[in-house]
């Protein structure tokens, strides 16, 4: 019985520590938008770095493909999590309109980089990844302002 209680407690702690809470106020929503923006900035800049290294012949095709695919998972997860949060008011709608399109653009570009990397077209990766830097810069400004 004691063991079962311990397992239940551990499950509650693990779930509590990892779940995404809903946003009830504008401030909550802004904070979640800022977190999403930061996660996508991280993924986008990882891809930009990886693309440069790949084109310079400083990494292997398989390693490049896995690194970009991992970044894609991060960016797509951040997008899905943010898209699933209900905006609590009109001001939150405006935040959503500002963040979500940029995030979706970033995910699409990362997808293209991943496809090219898996085709071993490493020389062309920086050109495909080029749109990511301005997107990352704009999301970083947003994240700094609202984070």
């Amino acid at each position, binding site marked *: 019985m004691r063991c079962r209680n311990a397992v239940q407690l551990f499950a509650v*702690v*693990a779930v*509590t*520590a*990892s779940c995404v809470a809903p946003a009830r106020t504008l401030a909550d929503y802004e904070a979640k938008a800022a*977190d999403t923006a*930061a*996660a996508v*900035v*991280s993924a986008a*800049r*990882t891809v930009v*770095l*990886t693309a440069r*290294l790949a084109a310079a*012949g*400083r*990494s*292997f*095709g*398989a*390693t490049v*493909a*896995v*690194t970009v695919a*991992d*970044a894609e998972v*991060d960016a797509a997860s951040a997008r899905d999590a943010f898209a699933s949060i209900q905006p609590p008011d009109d001001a939150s709608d405006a935040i959503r309109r500002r963040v979500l399109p940029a995030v979706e653009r970033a995910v699409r570009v990362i997808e293209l980089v991943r496809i090219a990397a*898996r085709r071993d077209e490493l020389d062309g990766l920086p050109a495909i990844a080029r749109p990511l830097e301005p997107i*990352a810069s704009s999301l*970083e400004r947003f*994240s700094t302002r609202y*984070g």
Partner: protein
Amino acid sequence: MKKVFEIFLGILTAFGGFVDIGDLVANAETGARFGMRLAWMVVVGVIGIVIYAEMAGRVATMSQRPVFDVIRERLGARLALVNLGASFFINLLTFAAEIGGLALVIELVTDINYLLWVPLVAIAVWIVLWKVHFSVMEKIFGLSGLALIVTVLALWRLDPGLGHTFASARQFGPPPAESWPTYAFFAIALLGAAMTPYEVFFFSSGAVEDHWTRKDLIINRANVYIGFPLGGLLSLAIMGGAAAMFLPRGVSVGHLSQLTLPVSSTLGTAGLVFLLYGMFAAIFSAALETALSAGYTVSQFFGWQWGKFVRPREAARFHVVVLFTICAGVLIALTTLDPIIVTEYSIVLSAAALPLTYLPILIVANDPAYMKDKTNSRLLNAVASGFLLLLIVVALATIPLMIWTKAGA
């Protein structure tokens, strides 16, 4: 001359075998988020593991009995069973993380999903445990882990350079974008990564496996006092590389693949080959140690014959526990839980259980009935007791901080 060579080899093995998946993940994540502001915790963790691993090795050498055996005798079966349960669970989680980490390294080389590699690396671990002699296994993988020295070279060549990066370690406290609770949570993760309980179980049981005698205490000290701090330098280099490359760009580390970037940007594909080989060897070594530690703790608690120094037939129950751990670790890894998340939880939960492992060692290391004339000095007791207090505070704070910070999110 033979003795000197043996000591040198032991130091190199301890150096190369110090880092595991927990160190790789915790140091890279922390470097990317906090720069070198938590480097002091790596130093604290290394001092802690040095003190207690030396004690555990000395206890095993002097009593010719491994630590868990003595723990049960001193604490009584019931309290030791709690210790066994916690240690086994954390050990299993750590093993699952190591297996997942190995599969991720192979994925980085092949671009084939890591889940396909999980059963294969588990079989490889089992074959090595079954077939290869203890000291050969320990030395080959420990020495191969030295390839991780490329992380130091990479840090040296990365902008802003080795000196500047380490100078930034003088800053204490979180950067403006992070909170104190998150800073404390990551400090705990680093401590858990450096002082993972399996390390002392393996180290003390290894002393018995290697038939250490009083004359070998010098090897024990050299391994621990020189090898572990050198291993700690690798942890700091990983943290420094992440701090130099990722922090200024706002990149957070959540994948093993990102660890390749500081090395490949500075040392190219040659450096990357060394890094991948070093990561594989270091994690493989840790997978062997955790699987063996599971067998050691359970067998030593129940008083079964254990170890690789006897034929498998003579330690059948020990090998069954090791095999069970490998199978259970594979099942955990195959749930598709992210191995990096499993690693994060394993090191944080390790931190919560640290006093359970280290208190009995401190008690026994002061008992002349086991230690004869080799009990702890007053100075060592003072430092070790201070550490134990720190570990108790950490253990109490871990779970509340995990909930408060959403596991450092």
